[in-house]
């Protein structure tokens, strides 16, 4: 029995809520009384969900504003003592939904616990609002994760603060908190710039890893060479070079000179993170080669680069994604490619 100052609310995706698999990824948000699926495990661990909210992963991703509005409307009515999202494990879309919901619930002052792989986009999306229990990719870890989540959530539901990350089993929260200091920002700025003049470069805000100022616009698209890059796992049929279906740390390139369109008999997708049937029927739906060729033929672009670049962007550690991006970019710069169209799923 929880000593909670309000209901316990649990957020799940379509699969864990028992609404279906990939085919139900478009499911609209629903509200269910009591625990569902992993919620029963939470209940056994002492944290019984009073209400379960669920939404299809694709529905959330493709209709984020509406889905959020519905879910937050319910949260505003329920005024939970704590919100638990997931565990999402290695699912990027599910983790993302958990992270966004955590962030928005956090803005309303609701404590949130979630669980996912440390590389999940949900960790970034949460902006430090949630206590994130790190997990492996595999659902089999559920029985280990649940007690940690339950304990954290019970603490928060009682209005208490959890202990430090390594003791309580959550990722250090990437939060920046305000403090009042002795010197004004102006005085500190003068000190920092005097130090910079002496060669001692210090900063109060570290350069952000993911922030890059936009590249200047292409001056004349009719003269530029454009390359097609994809993380949709598009490869020749048979996957002759063995592109991994998940957790890829590699990328491949395939020649497309003289190829007017991606023939479904010749190309496929091996990406393990989405339903590939639409893509199997027409791979141009992942890599728009036929349209790019048409623009090249009509002179709207200068040239289509002679190769397309491919990887599978599912369960990819951030470090791998950065390395893949850098390597592909280096290859493109060397080939004097001026612009890239990258397709993602």
């Amino acid at each position, binding site marked *: 029995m929880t000593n909670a100052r309000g209901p316990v609310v649990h957020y799940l995706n379509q699969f864990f809520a028992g609404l279906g698999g990939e085919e139900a990824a478009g499911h609209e948000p629903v509200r269910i009384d009591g625990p569902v699926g992993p919620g029963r495990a939470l209940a056994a661990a002492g944290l019984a969900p009073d209400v379960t909210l669920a939404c299809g992963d694709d529905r959330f991703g493709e209709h984020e504003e509406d889905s959020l509005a519905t879910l937050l409307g319910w949260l505003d009515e329920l005024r939970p003592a704590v919100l638990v999202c997931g565990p999402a494990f290695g699912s990027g879309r599910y983790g993302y939904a958990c992270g966004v919901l955590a*962030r928005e619930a956090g*803005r*309303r*002052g609701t404590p949130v616990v979630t669980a996912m792989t440390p590389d999940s986009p949900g960790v970034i999306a949460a*902006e*430090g*609002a949630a206590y994130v229990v790190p997990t492996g990719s595999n659902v089999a870890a559920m029985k280990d994760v649940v007690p940690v989540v339950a304990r954290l959530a019970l603490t928060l539901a009682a209005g208490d603060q959890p202990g430090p990350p390594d003791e309580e089993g959550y990722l250090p*929260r990437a*939060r*920046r*908190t*305000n*403090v*009042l*200091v*002795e*010197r*004004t*920002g*102006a*005085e*500190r*700025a*003068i000190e*920092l*710039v*005097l130090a*910079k*003049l002496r060669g001692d*470069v*210090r*900063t*109060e*805000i570290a*350069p*952000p890893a*993911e*922030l*890059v*100022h*936009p590249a*200047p*616009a292409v001056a004349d698209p009719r003269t530029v060479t454009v390359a097609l890059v994809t993380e949709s796992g598009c490869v020749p049929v048979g996957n002759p070079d063995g592109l991994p279906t998940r957790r890829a740390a590699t990328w491949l390139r395939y020649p497309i000179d003289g190829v007017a369109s991606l023939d479904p008999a010749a190309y496929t997708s091996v990406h393990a993170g989405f339903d590939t049937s639409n893509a199997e029927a027409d791979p141009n739906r992942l890599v728009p080669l036929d349209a790019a060729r048409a623009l090249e033929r009509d002179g709207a672009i200068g040239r289509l680069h002679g190769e397309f670049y491919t990887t599978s962007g599912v369960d990819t550690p951030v470090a791998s994604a950065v390395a893949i991006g850098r390597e592909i970019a280096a290859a493109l710069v060397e080939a004097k490619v001026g612009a890239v169209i990258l397709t993602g799923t």
Partner: protein
Amino acid sequence: MSSTLADLSIATFAIHEVVEGTRTGRNGATLVVDVPQLAVGARSDALAEVTVEVVRPDDPVRIANVLDAALPDVRADDPDGTFPGVLDHGRDEWLPPGPIHRLEGTVVLSVCDWGAAGFSEAAELPDAYLDMAGPGADRNPWAGDTAIVVRCVPAPGVPVADADAAVRRASLFAGRALASATIGDSPDRLDVWRHPSTVEVGSDLPAIAAVLQIASEGPLVDTFRLGRAMGTFAPTVVDPREPLTGAIVNGAYDWPAVRNVTAVYQGSALLRALLAGHGERFRMAGLVLAPGYLDGADEKQRAASRTAELLAELGADAAVCTTFSSGNSHTDTMLTIRACEQRGIAAVGLLAETNGGLTDHVPEADCLVSTGNEDELVDAWTPERVIGTDGDARVGEPVPTWAYVGACVETGDARLTAVPA
């Protein structure tokens, strides 16, 4: 000496207590305020109602719909010329005025519920609070000062720019009236600000310039210089003492925490530190006013390059670059930093943060001052009174830092900064 380079005197009078009385005047460190008379004097045809209220430090009061904060000032030899262009017909050029008398320990706040008055332009304006007590008091740069709250209700049918001008006149009128109580008195402190070019200093000292970013995008999001909306202006070298004299006045009411209220121009910590330090560890090279929120990458780049060019002409070795509010003005700051660095001018920028990180960044921005995290929630508080609105004022709910006026101002006047949690 040319009158353009004359010394500027600011005489400060410390006020420890404000009491209401039948005649506005000063009794040592006590300011007596004839509140009804002040309200009458602040009136104009464009306003249906003006009320004045004294709110003291630690009063359990939340003030909502705060527009501007200003320090009470009067030009002792030329009271009519105080807040030029706002309280008088204005003038074309700035010259160092005669002695300014300024009250310390009081601040004038203008308050207007534009939404309740029916102005659609106000629909997008975010909530703007100042708490005199409670957990939000440390987000209030004037929590230790007595607030003279000038609350205005626009007259029906008045265009928004006219109503706004009237609100501005009302509050600055009140500021002048209060400061006028000191005319003829000896100050507690006298600061004489000399133009740096009139002070001989060692030429081996590094030269630091200030870049004050200002935006002025239309009614309710304007900044006024000598009474005129600045609009889209070209980067300009100005006398570094000009903002201290009430020549630049705020009329922008979007994001409260990063709002450049009039008080941060009058009391500019950056300009005062650079002017006071001139000749010690550095030389003050000068001040450039730079436009923020320019439309389009080309315009932004041209302005950034021009600012850096002016800084080079001033002989600056380094520049402190402030930011005006949030969003794409951060790009203006980044491009300015980059343009400086490309000319070999070491640049530091002042920026507020959010939970989502910075809005923009360039590799040259390796030296940044944090003026705080605007997204951080302040604990819920239930004040005994709310001034400035009959509607919702987030009473009893957590309030994001961005809603507190001046808390994270990117001119460097506040003392809030963000650190890892």
